[in-house]
């Protein structure tokens, strides 16, 4: 779609955690838009084009740390050091646990659960997505049941250091038996990342996806 043909670059060296700035926005092939509305040294507040914002670590392998869905709220606490994977470069692995707490409504008793995540990185390779071709580092995390150690879920990201974000994200849910994969369609930054332009890109991404599904 886009006349962008970014040529892969050899990675210059160890790749630090992503450094997002307010205004950075990413449009994915399913039409999803993710915009940075605030960022500090550790965490980034994201939002779509409307609706509530949510907070997550700069380290995208860490599940969303704080979110709201209607009256429900959720938060997560991380035990371990997921940042040990960084800087990316040589393949390595790490693990961490996440304690999730959900409240159906403000007065509800919280519901808690624990997940164990085991992650690893691989060597960089070229990924061609709609937004261009990028040298990207595959990062893969598996989530296990903390009680039976069965594999429940796998998430994959292909992180493009030159872009400062991942260009592909895959989620395999072994309980549901589903795989969901989205690719980066476009990224806008600064004043260019207006809602109007992001909405247009989102709609186009959806239309393109529908067109691809048509027989």
């Amino acid at each position, binding site marked *: 779609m886009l006349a962008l043909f970014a040529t892969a670059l050899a990675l210059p060296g160890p790749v630090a955690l992503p450094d997002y700035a307010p205004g950075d926005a990413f449009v994915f092939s399913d039409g999803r838009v993710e915009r940075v509305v605030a960022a500090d040294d550790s965490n980034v507040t994201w939002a779509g084009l409307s609706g*509530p914002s949510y*907070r997550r670590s700069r380290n995208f392998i860490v599940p969303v740390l704080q979110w709201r869905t209607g009256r429900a709220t959720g938060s997560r606490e991380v035990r371990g050091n997921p940042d040990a994977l960084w800087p990316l470069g040589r393949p390595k692995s790490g693990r961490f646990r996440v304690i999730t707490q959900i409240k159906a409504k403000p007065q509800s008793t919280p519901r808690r659960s*624990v997940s164990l995540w085991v992650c690893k990185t691989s060597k960089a390779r070229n990924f061609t997505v709609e937004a261009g071709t990028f040298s990207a580092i595959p990062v893969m995390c598996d989530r296990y049941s903390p009680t039976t150690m069965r594999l429940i879920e796998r998430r994959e990201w292909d992180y493009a250091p030159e872009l400062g974000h991942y260009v592909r994200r895959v989620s395999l849910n072994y309980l549901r038996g589903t795989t969901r994969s989205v690719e980066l369609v476009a990224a806008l930054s600064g004043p260019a990342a207006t809602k109007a332009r992001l909405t247009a*890109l989102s709609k186009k991404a959806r239309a393109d996806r529908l067109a691809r599904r048509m027989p």
Partner: protein
Amino acid sequence: MRITTSMAWLLAATLVLVPVPHLLHGPLAAQDSGVDDDDDDRDDDDGDDDGDFDDPDDQDPGDDPDGDDDIGGDDPDGDDDIGGDDPDGDDDIGGDDPGGDDDIGGDDPGGDDDIGGDDPGGDDDADGDDDADGDDDAEGDDDAEGDDDAEGDDDAEGDDDAEGDDDAEGDDDAEGDDDAEGDDDADDNDDDDNFSEDEANDDFDDDLGQWQAIGGESEATRAELDARDLIDTDRDGFRYRRGEFVALDLMPEDLAQLEGRGFEVLARERLAAVDGTLLLLRGPPQLTSDGSFDALDAIADPDSFGYNHLFDSSSVQTKRKRGSTVPERQACGCAIGLIDTGVTTGLNYFKHVTLVQRAFNAKDPQARLHGTAVAHLMAGTKRNPARATKIFVADIFGGPRENSGSSFALIKALDWLAAQGVPVINISLSGPRNPAVASAIARITRKGHTIVAAAGNDGPAAPPVFPGAYDGVIGVTAVDGANRVYRYANRGAYVDFSARGVAVTAIDAKGGVRDATGTSFAAPVIAARLAAQVRSPDSAAAQKAIRALEGEARDLGPPGRDPIYGIGLIGEGN
């Protein structure tokens, strides 16, 4: 409890000693024993750890092609039954854990990992955070473009402080400094305030200063003002004046047909250099803009018209550079044109060059930072002994907001500059593809004029922006002092050259010294280099000068031409 804790220790020890894959027996779907391993909710077999209340990672927004409000995955589960939709009516937390103990690792004997045990429920604040809505700052913030400084703008409100500084106080002191102390604020945190530790220009990518969006408007303010000024966005999200179209050389019979259908000619300009007639049309009141566009499309040549788009001067980042001076540099020794904001012609910095300005959206040019900085990069600080420097400035932004940066003004500006005989025109603007603008550019390039444009600052995976991406236009990207590409620079096959455009020492409309960042400030380097070699519009001479630059370019990035750096880096030359 003791037993389960021991089991947890055993499990943890196993985890350490045995590679995890060896513990696995393949995907659960193939061997589901009926126990929900996702131990937050036994009735919810969706494999999440967030039960019925999906977190944003679980969103599946793509199935909503009807363009309703939940695009972008903003309605995480697509229903409104959240909150009370816990099917079993309980919020049980303990029962889902068959082990009765969530302390899986057991690796924290102090007990603080044992959320099931040490925090039996009397304290909801297991993570020390009961503030589930601690992110309230985000939804109240429409300022997504990274410019929180709506008041620290270039003063689009039309008051007297139009000089393009950040002086909200309206201080007009001539020193280019906004207060007596030589500092424009009281705190040390103002991005706009450059302190001495930064004088070595060593902060190429850590703090490039504030965005200078056109008019300094936040997105929310812009939306409000756009509604007032009848400005809409097209299908790609670019702004245009509602119901207005620009057309170049419409066939008389097409125009007659359009007028018969209710189109109105708002303005007509005979363009000598472009060699054509430019029309500003308004669609029939009974039609929407899209309807009018479709009507035009059915009658006229689609390459001859477009919306009356409103271009932005490529948004840039600037940072005051207090106490610094502008490095000495010769003027380009050329005749050159620029389409931009107005320039402060009275500054000492321009005494050694001739500046000619004309406004295309107002009676008089209005000086602002962007145009002044770009003109200064061409003018340098001292006379070029080889040849006089003459800079023609076409201001398309000054004047009524509703037409600021319009395609109509841009085409007229192109024509005027071509009529002045400038061989090279710098356009540090970016916006949508517009057939009428493209046609005007193609016409003057065929006459030997060279157009140099900023590649854009929309981001490395952003769609192409124009005029930089038009065929025949030289697109320029920006690199920093270490020859790394500017983080927000557009990339694409249309990037021809790289030049320094990060933390460039520039001057603002008051003569204050700033670090300026953006492809806007790289383009003038290439434009000036070409203009120094070509004395008049001449295709052959321009091609020769371009080939010379190609030969001089320092290849950056992957070998050969690439979409990030183009052919390579060009220096200032003198």
